[in-house]
């Protein structure tokens, strides 16, 4: 989950988390509680270790003493109720008071600037109004202008550190006051849509946007997300350097509407990550007589499972599913970059052809795929369905299927759509295969292209 207090999402792990692209609130609350519990356990273990290793503790307190005044607390306030809606952290990066934080900390301000305002609280408790200067929605970063002139600030530069380097993450967990968390740099994650630092340390809600620094006070990354159990993520400092350079360039003019900028950035980003999805080199998996695409890129994770006939259910089901573990935060209920697909093989030795067809129809018609969203953010789905056939050739098996493409549009972000492609193999009287591909926050043209390539990678033999 992202570590802004208002963010409720927990990326799924393994089969249990499948299909929850926008995860449920209950799960998220449990995850937050688990994270807090883990932090508490870690803290008590640390306390014991600290007693044994006086040296480590001394460094941590020195780091905290030296650099804590460069870290600030950020509140996003709902103007009507004058109550804070989001709590996050940030840090000074220029003598002119520019602050780096996460895009998701100030996303409400971007989405609804008439309803929200943001303010910064420094270590002395002084409050200053802030405005957004630049955003990088894909890498979850933002530069804020504050008008203050801080005494100290971090100088950002590219940094290469070896795995195992001790890092200190600073921020305001759960609004409990500025805290420092010791952890370890564990390299750049291999299987993600965009680079992220794997930080082993307990980052908690509220620390979003805070810096993770070396003991020399060099910023390595920006706190962004956690999965609990000390598995946390940082945005590499290079992304912050790039964004700051862009924001401070003399030619830079802030966009009149940042929301349009979010849309533009996401559109450009999805063009890149969807360009090669399900191309000719995509590996395939065989379920029954169906050959189907699987793991189209390194940042996908795949699982499989099977269920057997029970007293009640007269059919067997084999499932194979893959999804990106990653996503790009758009708003509390919307994200882009989520690509997931599932193949379900259904067979029965007991049901007659007509009864199997009823079962198959019911499974195919089960209408939700975990894409939630409110009326303010998205339209209803609109669908097109056809029976599709491709003849067999010497090089490739044939295909006969019912194909459905459903799309809905993001209301506030022109050009972005959610798309669901559902395929049901036809032609067998007691076997069937249903494939569902879900894309969120993509252009319509990309949805069509990916749907076509997804279908073209499928073939049935015999």
């Amino acid at each position, binding site marked *: 989950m992202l570590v802004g207090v208002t963010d409720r999402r927990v990326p799924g792990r393994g089969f249990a988390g499948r299909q929850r692209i926008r995860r449920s609130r209950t799960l998220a609350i449990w995850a937050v509680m688990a994270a807090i519990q883990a932090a508490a356990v870690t803290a008590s273990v640390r306390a014991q270790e600290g007693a044994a290793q006086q040296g480590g503790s001394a460094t941590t307190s020195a780091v905290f003493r030296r650099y804590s005044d460069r870290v600030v607390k950020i509140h996003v306030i709902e103007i009507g109720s004058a109550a804070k809606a989001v709590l996050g952290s940030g840090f000074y990066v220029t003598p002119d008071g520019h602050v780096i934080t996460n895009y998701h900390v100030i996303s409400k301000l971007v989405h609804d600037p008439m309803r929200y305002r943001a303010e910064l609280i420094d270590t002395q408790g002084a409050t200053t109004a802030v405005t957004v200067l630049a955003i990088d929605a894909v890498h979850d970063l933002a530069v804020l202008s504050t008008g203050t002139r801080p005494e100290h600030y971090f100088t950002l530069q590219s940094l290469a550190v070896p795995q195992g380097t001790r890092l200190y993450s600073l921020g305001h967990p759960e609004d409990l006051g500025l805290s420092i968390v010791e952890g370890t740099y564990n390299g750049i994650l291999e299987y993600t849509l965009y680079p992220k630092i794997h930080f082993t340390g307990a980052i908690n809600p509220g620390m979003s946007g805070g810096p993770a620094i070396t003991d020399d006070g060099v910023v390595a990354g920006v706190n962004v997300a956690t999965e609990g159990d000390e598995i946390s993520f940082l945005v590499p400092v290079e992304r912050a350097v790039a964004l700051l350079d862009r924001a401070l360039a003399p030619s830079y003019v802030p966009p009149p509407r940042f929301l349009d900028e979010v849309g533009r950035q996401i559109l450009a980003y999805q063009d890149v990550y969807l360009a090669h999805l399900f191309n000719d080199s995509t590996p395939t998996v065989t379920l029954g007589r169906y050959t189907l695409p699987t793991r189209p890129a390194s940042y996908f994770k795949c699982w499989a499972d099977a269920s057997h006939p029970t007293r*009640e*259910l*007269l*059919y067997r089901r084999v499932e194979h599913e893959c999804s990106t573990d990653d996503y790009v935060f758009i708003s509390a209920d919307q994200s882009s970059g989520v690509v997931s697909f599932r193949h379900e093989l259904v067979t*029965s030795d007991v*049901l*007659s*052809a*007509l*009864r*199997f*067809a*009823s079962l*198959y*129809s*019911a499974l*195919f*018609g089960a*209408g*939700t*795929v975990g*894409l*939630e*969203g409110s*009326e303010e953010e998205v*339209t*209803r*789905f*609109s*669908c*097109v*369905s*056809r*029976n*599709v*056939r*491709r003849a067999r050739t010497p090089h490739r098996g044939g*295909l*006969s299927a*019912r*194909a*459905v493409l*459903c*799309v*809905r*549009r993001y209301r506030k972000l022109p050009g972005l*759509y959610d798309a*669901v492609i*559902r395929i*049901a193999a*036809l*032609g067998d*009287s007691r076997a*069937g295969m249903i494939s569902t591909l879900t894309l969120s926050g993509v252009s*319509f043209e990309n949805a*069509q292209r990916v*749907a*076509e390539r997804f*279908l*073209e990678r499928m073939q049935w033999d015999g």
Partner: protein
Amino acid sequence: MGRIVIVEILDAHGAVRQRVRLERWPAIIGRAYSADVLLDDPYVSPEHVRVIDGDGFGLVVEDLASVNGLYTADGTRVSRATLGAGAVVRLGRTRLRFCPASQVVVPALVDGAAAASGEASAVRRGWRRLPVTAGLIALCVAATVVVGLQSYFDGYRRNGGSAAIETGAALFLVLVLWAAPWALASRVVVQRAQLLGHLAIASAATIAIELVANTEVWCSYLFPGSRFGGLVGGVGLCATFVGLLGGHLALASAMPARRRWRIVGTVTGAFVALGLLAAHIEAAKFTNKMDYPASLRPFPMAWLPATSVRGFIGATGDLKARVDSLVAER
């Protein structure tokens, strides 16, 4: 005197059990075999009352010192009463109504079965009606079986057979509950309940609905991109409703066909309008669900109308405009 009066002997519910013609005056009504109107009621005396022809229709009834007396319609015991046309009196436990012979009666009902065979009166009763009755019963059984089978083939869980029998039985109950008020209405309006007839009409409608639903499913399977299936379903359902309402009204009323069809047309029109309105409201509601034809049937692939992958992607072209217009809708 030449006056002719009809005495109607009524049963407990007020229905006429017997009609007796009185031509000779004075007339004796009682249990005695010599009486002019002979009543089989142990509470009636052998010579209970005498009816005298008065002025105008004014018949006069006199109690002949009977054991249980003579009562007027409002329950007052009298020794003598003057009666108007259609007046009712009670003797013992029997009620009598006195009507002039000139009383107008309602037109005869048209007996469809009899008209078909061309033997109006003979077909009304007896073995000749047997095939019709058997046919009506067969229709009810067929509806039950069709619904049971449909439920069996629509299901995919264990114990599909017993579930199908339960569904069939439940349907039969619903049919009876549906037909009963119509039968009651028929009994009141045209004096004949015709429960079996109403049951058969409801059964035929049930079979028609199943047929329409299956046709719709097959259409949407064969042509998922067209609105043909929905159209067939809508038209079929309307036609079934017209048949159902028209059939019930034909049995339960004596109104002329033209008027009947006018009523059926109005009611059907109202239902269609309500249905379209509900569908329109439902379509405007926000939902995260996707709506697409999901019915898949076993069918030889070679005959299945299908397009190419490219053709399918091409067909999705107007989706963009469709969802973009939804944004403008709010």
